[in-house]
């Protein structure tokens, strides 16, 4: 097979074309309207600022990555067992579900100042906001997945003499994975939003903090450079989860197109 016939080479080609066109458009607008650098810097200026400031951005990126991952992992570790409890008993559902929905109705961003009051500047408020914001989709999608097993399949398993734990581990849980990954992917994008919010409100490190200080100094080129780094990080995180999904549920209908 020639290189061009491979799906990913074609995908990569068209991605380069579309991003190239966007950057070209951007450079064209800056050149045509002669926009001042503090409003809209050109691609060259942003690239230059990135080159000048990469030593500054790396540690701040590290802090942001750390808070995103900590909040996200916490949401997974707490959320999935909680979803299992909700599904396993209607009493537990009545006890656990309403408070979960109630916390969800509070705008999480509004909680950040409270966390700063309680825990001061540092990692914890950021992790807490990231956790709260990505927790709900993970729990809800896991619950939906665990509930969507065909009742006839449970009947079949019981007629084969399977104990409830085995039905759960061998049938219900694998069947829930596609829906769970839906929640994990939505959560991965939200965790970044949560960590950044935490950094805006009470932090002296992280890309969110750096973003605010760049804005304060009207260093718009640096601001754009940080935005690019941020979106690269968020994309990398999202695709990492998607890769995990592809490895874990290659059998699912959503993954089959990739096989071709």
């Amino acid at each position, binding site marked *: 097979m020639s290189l061009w016939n491979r799906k990913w080479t074609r995908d990569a080609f068209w991605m380069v074309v579309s991003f190239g066109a966007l950057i070209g458009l951007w450079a064209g607008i800056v050149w045509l309207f002669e926009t001042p650098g503090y409003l809209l810097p050109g691609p060259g200026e942003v690239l230059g600022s990135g080159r000048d400031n990469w030593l500054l951005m790396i540690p701040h990126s590290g802090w942001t990555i750390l808070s995103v991952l900590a909040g996200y992992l916490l949401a997974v570790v707490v959320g999935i067992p909680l979803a299992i409890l909700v599904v396993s008993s209607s009493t537990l559902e009545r006890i656990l579900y309403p408070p979960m929905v109630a916390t969800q109705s509070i705008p999480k961003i509004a909680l950040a100042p409270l966390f700063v009051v309680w825990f001061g500047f540092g990692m914890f408020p950021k992790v807490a906001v990231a956790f709260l914001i990505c927790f709900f989709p993970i729990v809800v999608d896991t619950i939906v997945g665990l509930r969507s097993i*065909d009742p*006839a*399949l449970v*009947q*079949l*398993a*019981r*007629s*084969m*003499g*399977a104990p409830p734990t*085995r*039905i759960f581990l*061998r*049938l219900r849980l*694998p*069947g829930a994975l596609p829906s769970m990954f839906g929640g994990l992917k939505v959560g991965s994008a939200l965790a970044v939003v949560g960590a950044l919010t935490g950094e805006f409100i009470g932090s002296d490190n992280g890309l969110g903090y750096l973003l605010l200080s760049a804005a304060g100094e009207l260093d718009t080129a640096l601001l754009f450079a940080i935005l690019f780094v941020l979106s690269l990080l968020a994309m990398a995180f999202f695709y990492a989860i998607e890769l995990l999904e592809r490895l874990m*549920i290659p*059998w*699912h*209908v959503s993954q*089959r197109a990739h096989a071709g």
Partner: protein
Amino acid sequence: MLQRPSAGDETVAIPRAGTDESFIEIAALNKTFVGQDGEAVVALEGLDLNVRRGEFVTIVGPSGCGKSTLLSLVAGLLEATKGGIRIGGTPVVEPYTDLGFVFQSDLLLDWRTVTGNVLLPCVMRGLDQAAHLGRARELLASVGLEGFEGKRPFELSGGMRQRVALCRALLLDPPMLLMDEPFGALDALTREQMQVDLQTIWHRTQKTVLFVTHSISEAVFLSDRVIVMTPRPGAIRAILDIDIERPRDLNVHDTPRFTGIVHEIRLMFQEMGVIHR
């Protein structure tokens, strides 16, 4: 799991309608469900039925007449409100696992291969899968699925998938099959082929089969006896002996005796108001 000796050969005494030994005994069976609004719905009322070992019995009736409920009761997945069921002389009080269940939906697991799906009874019972691999392959070959062992269910047609489900039910060689509209989701031609193949398997393995369907002609074609059910609450309207020689081929559909029985059953449903002219 005991491996029972099976007849193995293709020549079968004709006609054959099971042995004289009673295998499934259903006596004065009642099942009442209590709905969420607290209202009781009688699903089955005063059902008496004996199925002989090796017999093929089909229950035909309208939707909601409790046919599926009856199968669940026989498998011990539901508890009877009144009356009882004995299998091989033993009362059914908990899930009776020495049987194969086939549903309208094939219920194949997308994350397991064809062979992996056939081996599901081993997984569910905690038995060694490797020890049953040979048996699984044999069964797949016997239904014409040789070469499909490593495929995923989504690569198979509806008829092939239902064959895999049948192999899964037969893996541990249970003496009895419960089939809940197993061919209901298949196209008409595939369905007829499956009926012929099921008959062949039944001849070869001498299973006791309790089969549920909406199709009158499917019931008559497959069965030694057809149980006609009334609409809710489900009760037995009639039991018909189908004394047509076996093995039957599809052309039996056009014989006067076959069409006569089908006509007789259809008249019963018209009389009960299940279908109208």
